[in-house]
Structures are given as structure tokens and as C-alpha cells.
């Protein structure tokens, strides 16, 4: 019954999406009101059917209906209810179903928000979105089949992958990732529409940019949540390993970040239109590549789902989308034209270009490192991995260059700068640079790259803060407003600009925290008997004993470890080894004492409850929590930039004396 209902809903979604795609394209080619009405209705229908299909699956998971194949794969009567709920996205077929839900929501919201604007572009955009929707519906109807019927259902199932049951971050990481990935469909549709129409006006770059920003915020959070999950769950003490699947989420983030910046030049100067469209299309294609990577079994990774027939289908879609994008670009990119000329002298404009090229270089570097092992395998029949050294060697200089540009760019004025302007813009932030680098040196940073990133970070931090509050200071000086009023007014008028600098500030902190945490930690591996104490730096760890903990879905042995720092008690940590129902190998869960300056990280290698011994990996990781905090800041900055400015404030924003203002009043 339930499987049939699920399959019917998927087929209806497929029908609505395919019909909507055809109607959308037809209406785009020959605009008419009836066609546009129907394209919208079909978009909403697609979203509704996807939502209902997801509800059906949730119902099946919660009622343990093992006649549904997906529930038979991942369901279990012994797991807590929340695990049953999130099982929807814990395995391959369900994750694609969930993907469909996210897509439905995006398509419905974008159609609804922009239903009355841009009549020229929108039917095409809806057509592209629904074409993508049709593909994912097809995937669900054919190769993925979460709703296949199991004729003689078992009484219980195995439950989801234990690594995924282990932590609450598993609940939030995938939804963020899918919201980031799937959300890129919307800018992809809008950019394709602008190519199909052959024009990218200033009015249309704004929705494009805003939808891109929404997905970017989700993707930023998702990448870092993924790192956080790895840190809290996998137990090797790091947060990023250049794993192919991590790279898969990083690649579209790089191009999307580049596109967000180049879109600004489109908006301000009318240049780089074709380039921006290319970046947006590339971003979407990279999300599909990432989807393929995680779901094809081609890449070997802790994160990837197992092999299936889904891989080839996604690859076919990737090829079709690539071909569509390329042909469309080749036919139409010239018609987008340019309304101005790009300043190439020392200026903020040129720095935008440098930044864009660095991001693209970064993208190619990571893509090459990810795909190269496959090339070697295909050509020579042997396997290899380029591993961390390649990625670290390449990404550190590019990252530093980006940090540098993030400081120099905003410091420079738009248009060509004079020698005097250059001096005035670039000399003062050297103070911040020296202060931060000196502080790092005093605190023990000796690694050249760490010191360099602190130097550039200090420069960029000072520029960012001074630019962030420039409009406030200008208002206070020229209008005599008080601090609070000036801040409120500047906020109302230049929220996007302010938000952008908040994002930059967060990015500076993230880069500095990565530099410090990856070079200045300390670690040790110890074997302790009950009652024994070991020290690492200022920490003193006492292994009190091993305890048995039983929960319905897992049995754990945990080590009770008392922590003291400089003689003061910090409490007790419980790293554990868990054995899950229906799983053979025990899974370790680290325990982390999180602090503002450093984390103490404990991971069990072996534990013997009877003998009272434990083998522990002890790590002190400095500044890691700042990565999470600063990412939240970046997301917040993105949200601030999304909030539209007060009505009527836009015109007033272009007041004289604000020539250095980056993004004021343009949203």
C-alpha cells in the first residue's frame, strides 16, 4: 500500500516536472499568459508531489513499514525516533528523495517570489528548473527506487550506518549540504534563462545574486559542519582531509564565491557578464559532479554511499547538463555584451578580477587533485592518491593570496588609483598586520606560513573593520549623527555592504584559525591503567575507569577521564567505543573539551573494561572552535546582506562622499 502510494507520487512529480519543463521552454520561446500560468502550476505541483512523497517515506520509517525497500535497508525498531526521522537522508535512495523535497521547495519559492517580475526570463528559468526536477524524479522512479515493494518483509531492519547514528551533527549536516547543493539549481536556471533570452540586465542580476547567496550560505555552513562532524565523530583529531567528497562540496563553493564577487562588477560596471554566467553554470555542474562523486562508488571515501546503478544515470545527466551549458554559452555568451570597460590599473576593480582568477585557479587545483588518481587508474591500471601533501602545498599559497587580495581589494578605491591614494590605502593596515603577526610570534608561532597568514590576516582584518564602519564614521562626521543613529542609518542604507564585510571578517578568522590549528597543536598517544595519570602541556588526565553503557541501539564501553588544567578541574570526558546493533566492528567516538583558545581531544584506540586499561590519543588543538564561530559569522553576514534595505533608502544611498563604498544601495 505505502510503496504503491510512494511510487505513484514520484511518477506524478515526474509527470508534472516534465510537462512543466516543456511548457516553460515553449512559453519562453513564445510568451503567452496561459503558458506562464501553466508552467507555474506545474512547478507548484512538482513541489507538492515531492513533499508528499517525502512525507510518505517518513511515515513508513516511523511506522517501521519494512515492505518499503528503503525502510528495509536503513530502518530498525531499535533506534530512537529521531534516528528514524533522519534516516530519510542517511542512505543513498532516501537522500535522493530528500534532494527532491529540497528542490521542490526551492523551485516553488523561486517561482512564487519572482512570478510577476521578469516575464521575459522566468518561463525559461522555470523550464530549466523543472528539467532538472524531471531528472531527479526519473532517478527516483527508475534507478534509485526508494519505494520498491519487498514482498515478504522482515520483522526488523539493520538501522542506518553507525557512524551516522553517532552524532547530532548528522541530523543537520546533510540538510544544509542539500540546501546548498540543490539551491544552486535556481541561479543555474536564472543564468540559463539570461543566455536563452540573450540579455543579462541589471534588474536580473540581483535575483540571480540573491539566490546564489542563499545557497552559498547553506553550502558554507555545510562544508564547515561536515568538518565539525568529522572532528567530533571520526576520532583522528582533524576536520579536513581533502577527501574526494569533501572536495566535492568545496569545488562549487569556490566557483559560487567567485560568482558572488563578479556579479557585483556586473551590477556596478556592467562588465564580466559572460564570465559571471559561466561561473554560475560551472557551480551547478560542480554540484552535480559532487553528487556523482558521492553516489557512484568511483571515489573511495568515508563519506560516500555504496555503489549502485545511480552513478551512471547521474553521469548521463552531468554530461547532458554540461553539453547544454556549453552549447548555450557558445551560442549566446557574446549577446550578453558589456556596458563598460574593466579597469586594469591598480584599483578595486582589478582586485576583483585577481580574486576571481585565484578562485578559479583554486577550483582547477582541487579538481585536478581529486580527479588525477582516476586518470592514472584509467590510463595505467594502477591506483594512486595524490594525498594531502599536494593539496596542502597548493592550497596554502592560493589561500594566502586570497587573504591578501581580500585586504588589498577593499582598501583600494574603484577606478584607477593614484600613487598617493595607494599609499594612503595600503600603509595604515600594515599596523594591524604587524600587530597580529607579532602576537602570533610571542604566542609561539614559528611556522613561516602561519606567520604569513597572521600577517596578511592582520592587514585584511584592519581593512575589513575600517571599511565595515566607514559609512558610520562618514555619517557621524558629515551629518553630526550620534554613533547609534549613524549605525542604524548606515545599516538601513548599506546593509549588503555591511554584511559583505562581516563575511570577510569571518573569513579572516577562519583562515587564521586553520593556520594556527594545523601547525601549533600537540599530541600524544598513551596506554593507561586504571587510576593512572598522564600530562600533555598544561593538561593532566586521569583514567578513572571503564564503564559499560547500554542503550537500545548500541552498547558502549566508555573511559571516564578526569581533566585538570594547571591544577584546576575541567570536569570529566567520556571517549567511547560503541557496538551497534547488527554491526560487527565497534566504532570509536572521541570526546572533546572545547575551549575558546584550544580544544582537548580524546580518542580511544583500545579499551579493556575487564583489565581496566585504555589506549588514548590525546590532542591539544588550538583555536579550532574559532573555525565554527567564524563560520557562523560568515553565515550571519550573508543573511544580513540578503535582507533588503529600507524602502526609499536606495536612492539616498548614492550620496556624495561615498565613492569608496562598495555595495551600497544596490540590492
Amino acid at each position, binding site marked *: 500500500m505505502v510503496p504503491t502510494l510512494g511510487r505513484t507520487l514520484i511518477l506524478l512529480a515526474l509527470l508534472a516536472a516534465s510537462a512543466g519543463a516543456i511548457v516553460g*521552454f515553449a512559453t519562453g520561446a513564445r510568451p503567452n499568459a496561459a503558458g506562464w500560468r501553466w508552467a507555474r502550476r506545474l512547478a507548484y505541483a512538482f513541489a507538492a508531489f515531492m513533499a508528499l512523497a517525502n512525507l510518505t517515506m517518513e511515515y513508513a520509517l516511523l511506522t517501521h513499514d519494512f515492505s518499503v525497500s528503503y525502510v528495509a535497508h536503513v530502518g530498525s525498531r531499535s533506534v530512537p525516533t529521531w534516528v528514524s526521522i533522519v534516516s530519510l537522508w542517511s542512505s543513498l535512495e532516501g537522500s535522493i528523495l530528500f534532494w527532491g523535497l529540497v528542490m521542490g521547495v526551492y523551485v516553488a519559492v523561486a517561482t512564487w517570489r519572482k512570478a510577476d517580475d521578469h516575464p521575459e526570463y522566468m518561463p525559461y528559468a522555470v523550464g530549466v528548473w523543472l528539467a532538472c526536477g524531471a531528472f531527479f524524479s526519473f532517478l527516483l522512479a527508475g534507478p534509485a527506487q526508494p519505494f520498491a515493494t519487498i514482498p515478504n518483509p522482515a520483522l526488523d531492519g539493520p538501522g542506518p550506518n553507525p557512524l551516522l547514528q553517532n552524532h547530532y551533527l548528522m541530523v543537520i549536516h546533510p540538510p544544509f549540504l542539500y540546501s546548498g547543493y540543490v539551491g544552486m539549481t535556481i541561479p543555474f536556471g536564472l543564468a540559463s534563462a539570461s543566455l536563452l533570452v540573450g540579455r543579462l540586465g541589471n534588474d536580473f542580476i540581483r535575483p540571480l545574486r540573491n539566490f546564489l547567496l542563499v545557497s552559498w550560505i547553506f553550502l558554507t555552513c555545510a562544508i564547515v559542519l561536515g568538518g565539525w562532524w568529522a572532528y567530533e565523530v571520526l576520532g583522528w583529531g582533524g576536520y579536513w582531509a581533502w577527501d574526494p567528497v569533501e572536495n566535492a562540496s568545496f569545488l562549487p563553493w569556490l566557483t559560487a564565491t567567485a560568482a558572488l564577487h563578479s556579479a557585483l562588477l556586473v551590477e556596478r560596471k556592467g562588465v564580466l557578464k559572460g564570465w559571471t554566467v559561466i561561473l554560475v553554470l560551472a557551480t551547478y555542474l560542480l554540484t552535480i559532479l559532487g553528487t556523482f562523486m558521492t553516489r557512484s562508488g568511483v571515489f573511495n571515501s568515508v563519506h560516500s554511499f555504496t555503489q549502485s546503478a545511480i552513478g551512471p544515470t547521474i553521469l548521463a545527466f552531468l554530461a547532458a547538463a554540461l553539453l547544454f551549458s556549453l552549447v548555450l*554559452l557558445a551560442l549566446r555568451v557574446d549577446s550578453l555584451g558589456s556596458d563598460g570597460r574593466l579597469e586594469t590599473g591598480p584599483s578595486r576593480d582589478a582586485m576583483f578580477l585577481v580574486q576571481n582568477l585565484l578562485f578559479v585557479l583554486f577550483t582547477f587545483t582541487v579538481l585536478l587533485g581529486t580527479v588525477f588518481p*582516476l586518470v592514472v587508474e584509467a590510463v595505467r591500471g594502477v591506483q594512486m592518491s595524490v594525498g594531502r601533501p599536494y593539496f596542502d602545498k597548493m592550497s596554502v599559497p592560493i589561500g594566502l593570496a586570497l587573504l591578501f587580495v581580500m585586504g588589498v581589494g577593499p582598501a583600494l578605491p574603484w577606478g584607477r588609483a593614484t600613487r598617493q591614494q595607494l599609499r594612503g590605502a595600503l600603509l595604515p593596515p600594515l599596523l594591524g598586520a604587524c600587530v597580529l603577526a607579532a602576537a602570533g610570534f610571542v604566542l609561539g608561532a614559528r611556522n613561516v606560513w602561519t606567520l604569513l597568514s597572521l600577517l596578511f590576516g592582520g592587514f585584511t582584518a584592519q581593512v575589513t573593520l575600517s571599511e565595515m564602519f566607514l559609512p558610520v564614521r562618514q555619517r557621524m562626521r558629515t551629518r553630526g549623527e550620534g554613533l547609534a543613529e549613524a549605525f542604524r542609518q548606515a545599516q538601513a542604507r548599506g546593509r549588503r555592504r555591511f554584511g559583505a564585510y562581516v563575511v570577510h571578517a569571518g573569513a579572516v578568522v577562519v583562515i587564521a584559525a586553520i593556520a594556527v590549528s594545523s601547525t601549533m597543536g600537540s599530541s600524544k598517544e598513551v596506554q593507561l591503567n586504571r587510576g593512572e595519570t598522564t600530562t600533555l602541556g598544561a593538561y593532566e588526565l586521569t583514567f578513572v575507569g571503564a564503564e559499560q553503557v547500554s542503550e537500545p541501539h548500541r552498547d558502549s564501553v566508555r573511559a571516564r577521564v578526569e581533566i585538570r588544567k594547571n591544577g584546576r578541574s575541567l570536569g570529566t570526558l567520556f571517549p567511547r567505543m560503541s557496538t551497534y546493533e547488527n554491526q560487527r566492528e565497534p566504532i570509536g567516538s572521541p570526546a572533546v573539551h572545547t575551549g575558546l583558545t584550544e580544544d582537548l581531544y580524546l580518542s580511544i584506540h583500545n579499551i579493556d573494561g575487564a583489565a581496566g586499561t585504555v*589506549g588514548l590519543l590525546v590532542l591539544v588543538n588550538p583555536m579550532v572552535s574559532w573555525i565554527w564561530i567564524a563560520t557562523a559569522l560568515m553565515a550571519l553576514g550573508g543573511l544580513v546582506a540578503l535582507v533588503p534595505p529600507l524602502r526609499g533608502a536606495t536612492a539616498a544611498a548614492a550620496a556624495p562622499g561615498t565613492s569608496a563604498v562598495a555595495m551600497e544601495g544596490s540590492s
Partner: protein
Amino acid sequence: MATTLTSGAGTARAPRLNRKVLVAGLAIALPLLAVLVANLGRDPHSVRSPLVGRPAPPFRLVPVGGGAPVALASLRGKPVVINFWATWCVPCFQEHAALVASARTLTGVQFLGIVYEDDEARTGEFLRERGTSYPSLMDKDGRTAIAYGVFGVPETFFIDPQGRIVEKYVGALDRDAILSLLSLARGGGR
């Protein structure tokens, strides 16, 4: 579906093809797609090494931190497990405990580590911190790794008492994998 999309592209205006964009795009896209297609359906753990069944290439290498060199030829008569590894490699980190424990508990077998593109001081520190129960050898000019056709780490070779390579394993080993591959090397049938 792709045909729906592209036909929509062609209808509105007489197209003027930008060849540069098309050629550059295809130059990036086609090789990428070709590689992905070529790799479809393979098991990422499976390995086809031409060395399997052949005599293991000889070597004579000095252990990390110095000491008497170890020669493969001197180990004839018992199975040998040669693990290529590095401190920068995450899977190596994961399999280290299983290897050390196996070397400690299993008798009549010689485990050897060969350090792949890594610094001796860092390797020594890694081994001191994490402990070891078998020698790790420095392969300074990388000749041994080349002779064994190592392309990435970890890679582990299982060698039978007659000095022939019976299996090559790529990726992190666990105890079960070590035991089953060792039984191959001991002549447990194939």
C-alpha cells in the same frame, strides 16, 4: 531532456557561435567525462598489480633512526608483509594500530614498514608517539617504492615464504583483512 533544452536554445535568434568558449569548454569537459566513464563500476578497493605472482623486488634499507640495514633476501622462509606508509596519510594512521597489534601477536611472519615520501624525523616522532612492533625502513631515494610500483599510500604487499608477491592491498587494512591475506601468503590456497 537534453534535447528539449538545446532545441529551446536555438529558436529565438540566428546564433553566432563563439568557438573559443565551445572549444575551451569541451577541452575541459570531455576528458573529465571520459575519466569518469572509464572509472564507472570499478571497486575502489580492487587492485590489479602486474607484480602479483612475481618475485618481490629485493631491497636493503636502513630503519628509521638508524641501525643495521634490513634486506628482503634475508627474510626468506617466512611470509613477509610490507606496508608502504607515510605520516601525512590518514588511512595509514587508521591502519597503524591493527598492523602493530598483528605484528605483535602473530608468529612466524615478518612485518616491515617502508616510509613513502616522508621526513625521517617526523616519521620517528610518529612511531615514538604511536608505538610500533616492527621495523620501518627509510626509502630515501624512493627506489624501492618505484620497484614495487607504489602510487599512493597505504599500499601493502603480502609476500610468501618463497619471496613471491601473492597480493597487493590498497587502503587501510584492518585485522580481518590482514589475517585473510596472510593466510594467502602462508599458502592457504587461492
